[in-house]
């Protein structure tokens, strides 16, 4: 999947890819102790399009949101259905529009379009449903994960997306010297990450965003390495 991180304070948008392997579970957001929210995403693979020399594609096939407060609720979203596991288990098809509201937690499905998970009024995630009517072999029904509102997430929030919520970044030009090519670096958390300008399509292709792209599975951009974000199962809530 490709990741886009918006830094509103710095007025910058950064993007990166995490290729991963089918079956990997990636930690996207982790704020287990403070707000009690954890988000994981599971990857599936698909062959590259014919004629392309790229390696296989990966998509999110399942996204889980675990909410701990006031009581533990597991929300599992796939392109076909949403499963809410709390005191009762509710399975909702994605092809119909429905809102499930239980006070603090609200799950709203807009038929075949998106699923919005809202926690406590100041945390919300929007999961886009990408469904193909006649998919090519390299296309798989998959999900897109977007942060709607993050005010309720704490400064200790982590995960591939969560770690950037309260960060500020800056851009700098690499000095030109010897054979080295001139380039741009992103200053984040005291680290310098080489970036190039790219464009990414978001919201299911509805919009295009210009961003600074960090290569190599976001090496140096993210804390640790991408492997550190792999979790053993979908409902893992262990801290960073």
């Amino acid at each position: 999947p490709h990741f886009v991180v918006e830094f509103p304070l710095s007025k910058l948008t950064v993007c990166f890819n995490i290729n991963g392997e089918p079956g990997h579970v990636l930690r996207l957001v982790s704020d287990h102790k403070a707000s009690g929210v954890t988000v994981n995403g599971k990857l599936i693979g698909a062959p590259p399009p014919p004629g392309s020399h790229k390696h296989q594609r990966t998509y999110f096939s399942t996204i889980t949101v675990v909410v701990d407060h006031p009581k533990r609720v597991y929300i599992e979203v796939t392109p076909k259905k949403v499963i809410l596991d709390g005191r009762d288990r509710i399975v909702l098809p994605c092809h119909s529009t429905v809102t499930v509201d239980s006070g603090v937690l609200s799950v709203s499905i807009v038929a075949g379009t998106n699923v919005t998970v809202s926690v406590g009024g100041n945390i919300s995630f929007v999961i886009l449903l990408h469904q193909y009517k006649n998919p090519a072999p390299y296309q798989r029904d998959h999900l897109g994960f977007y942060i709607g509102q993050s005010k309720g997430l704490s400064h200790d929030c982590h995960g591939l997306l969560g770690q950037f919520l309260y960060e500020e970044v800056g851009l700098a030009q690499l000095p030109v010297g010897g054979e080295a090519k001139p380039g741009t670096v992103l200053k984040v958390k005291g680290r310098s990450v080489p970036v190039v300008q790219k464009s990414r399509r978001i919201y299911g292709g509805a919009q295009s965003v210009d961003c600074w792209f960090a290569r190599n599975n976001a090496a140096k951009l993210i804390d640790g390495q991408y492997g550190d974000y792999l979790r053993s199962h979908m409902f893992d809530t262990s801290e960073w």
Partner: protein
Amino acid sequence: RVPRQVKTILAKETRPLIQELSIKTTIMSRYAFTAVYCAMLNRRSAASEGVFQLQIPANAYVSNFTMIIGGRVYQSEIRPREKKVKPEDGRAKNKESGDPSAEPEMEVFKMAANIPGRNRAVFMLTYEELLQRRLGRYEHVTSLRPLQLVSRLTLDVTIIDHSAITGLEVLLLRNSRGGGAGTSRTSGRPQLPVTTEIKKEKNMCRITFSPNIVQQARIATNGLLGDFVIRYDVQRDMGIGDIQVLNGHFVHYFAPKDLPAVPKNVVFVIDTSASMLGKKIRQTKEALFTILGDLRPGDHFNFISFSNRVKVWQPGRLVPVTPNNVRDAKKFIFMLPTSGGTNINSAIQTGSSLLQDYLSAQDASPNSVSLIIFLTDGQPTVGEVQSVTILGNTRSAVQGKFCIFTIGIGNDVDYRLLERMALDNCGMMRRIPEEADASSMLKGFYDEIGTPLLSDIRINYTKDSVQYVTQHLFTNYFNGSEIVIAGKLTNQSAESLHVQVTASNSDKSIILETDVPLQHREVETENRVKAARAVMAAGARPPGSALAKEFGVVLGSILEDFVERLWGFLSVKEGLRSRLRSQTSREREDHIQQATNLSLTYNFLTPLTNMVVEKPSVLADGTTAPPTNEAISTGNEVLSEPVDPAGPGGRPPTLSNTVGGDEKRPVKKSVTISKTSADGD
């Protein structure tokens, strides 16, 4: 060829598509409930504006409007309308009167809402009206103008009545309106309503019109199908009429038949100012020629033409209807010139003194009915031009001895003046639109009032058994019309209600009396409601969505209170009329308060109330933003004005399909998606 055209039209359509439009009407003893269900689909990925637009009869009151967009329910709320500064020209919307005859035939209800990309929106509307009997029939009109071709279009009208239904007519689809004067003539090319099913029994009939998309395209590719018109009457007798009782309320329909006509003394006061030149005067003359032929032997008549000056055809008298008089009158009408301004005050004064003199000279039959038929196409421009003074002068001249019926042609008329003049003097006002066939409308209006059957009608019910009875004293009862009275029963367990009708006929006074067995009548009415509900349940047509059917069920539940709602409807109309007639501001305020309270009780969108609808806003990315409110008022067109969403008494939207939550809990602020995301490869 047409199916191919349809395919192309649908492919090119950029607006959200109306997938389903279902209009269900149940007419329960002349009280018509209509539920409209409209489902729209936004096929595009970006948000798009869906417009729900419907023409509803001007006589009807909207009683509910609901939208479901993006899974959320946006419920309307009726609130009292805030006082506004009167426009300087003093003109008011005609609906202010509450007099249905004064209103244009149709009003437009319009609501636009943003529909998120690849999403559906559902609009649901209910409105209610009391069908009026004119020229011996009830007419129900449904506007079928969805403005695009609709995949599933269904119109379903069920008529249920205590009396046997007679003379049912389903007319050709009417493309444009000839006017509401009860005339049957229409302009525009009528279209055959294809696929119309009519099922008729003695007390019930059901009409279903469901053209498929190709059949719609054959009528009009732009979705302007026309008006679906149903006319019918019910069997009636000479007695006190039909009384129906339900849940502590009663309604009394009085329209006796086989009565001899009462002779009338009529003065026609015709505007011949310069603006009448051309089509207006030509059509007026045509109508008057026909009307002259329809005068009865016992009638007396005269003509007054007015512009700057007033001219009386036969000064100082009313002449009997004889072949010679009719011939001379035709000659006078034929020779009428048009020039000058409009001296309404003098014309009315002259007409009034003519009638007063005739009545006081003891030439007139003691039980005859006297009336002035006044026609103009403009505002007063010569002589007295102040409306208040003209109205005062008219009241003084008439002294309650006769009635004034007013007709306005075109857009330049001071309809408020004509309306007040008619209301103050036991008459009616009728408007003839600029482009309408004035000849047939004028003739139609005359036909409505041309045959008085009773005068000074007083309807009384057992003292202390009823309260809040609507108007029960009437100056005249005309052939082909109907008097409807409703009220509350103070003692529901009483065995019977004594009803007494007193009136004057051509040569005698009439007293009709009877004891109505209340319990028996209540059971009868309940049975009909049950029958109506059964019909509606059986009529859940396969193409209709579950929600549409559910909406039909809501309609069914409204039926159970139809007598009470009818009483509320009549009381609001009466309150609006009384407000216009009130002489003091205190009296006016009381009528306003009373009518407003009733409108709020029965959730009617009236001239005294606003309908506040919470609307979703959609961001560029297709997500919903915090909702905003919009207020709808009555008028010829919808007046939309944004109101403060956080205003006092603001009602939060309810959630659809809420599971495990409190439905009344306010919805949290909608989310905006940031770019921070992890998405497809």
